[in-house]
């Protein structure tokens, strides 16, 4: 099992450009999450999904969109990148067991720089 994979690993964008980050998991997990990590601020939840075809906003959703057309994939889109979106982006997945907190399994991350 590859676990959680993310593509690309690195990306440099110019302000105003768009891009999509892809997350894939092969553990048949129901729940998937997108976080951003900035120095001194921990991990902040951008969007999440509780199953195929569903998405919901997290703590810092502005400027991002997501889609979960297939259970194993969770896409994060930036329509018009801004320098404030320079960050490391992590995707995570969880089993989705009702009534308890799941362990989250993280991908290796995407380091995005917006100039």
């Amino acid at each position, binding site marked *: 099992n590859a676990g959680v994979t993310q593509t690309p690993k690195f990306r440099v964008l110019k302000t105003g450009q768009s891009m999509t980050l892809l997350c894939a998991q092969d553990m048949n997990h129901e*729940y998937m999450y997108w976080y951003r990590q900035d120095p001194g601020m921990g991990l*902040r939840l951008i969007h*999440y999904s509780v199953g195929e075809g569903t998405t919901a906003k*997290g703590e810092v959703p502005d400027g991002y969109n997501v889609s979960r057309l297939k259970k194993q994939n969770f896409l994060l889109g930036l329509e018009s990148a801004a320098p404030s979106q320079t960050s490391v982006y992590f995707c*995570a997945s969880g089993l*989705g067991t009702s009534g308890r907190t*799941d*362990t*989250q399994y993280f991908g290796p991350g995407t380091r995005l720089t917006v100039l």
Partner: protein
Amino acid sequence: GQQVMQIPQYQHVQEGEDFTTYCNSSTTLSNIQWYKQRPGGHPVFLIQLVKSGEVKKQKRLTFQFGEAKKNSSLHITATQTTDVGTYFCACGGTSYGKLTFGQGTILTVHP
């Protein structure tokens, strides 16, 4: 929503010294998880604490959940260079398995 404050932000120790990071909340937590992130890596789950006063050990790591379920700690005995990284606490128990992460403690171990 739930928030957790983690201290210290940085900790530098000599190899062999002990290390502790603390996680505090103003509200009662349903449970708390701890994750470790190696430099350049991704967060990896270490443990989950659920019960009031719970103590769990993993080799040189000791995890505690406070009696009031408002704080938690991670203690490493006799640090090694392999312990370097950022340690995060995360509180859960909200809907859909969502976690709220603390800011993390960056541990540096000098050989």
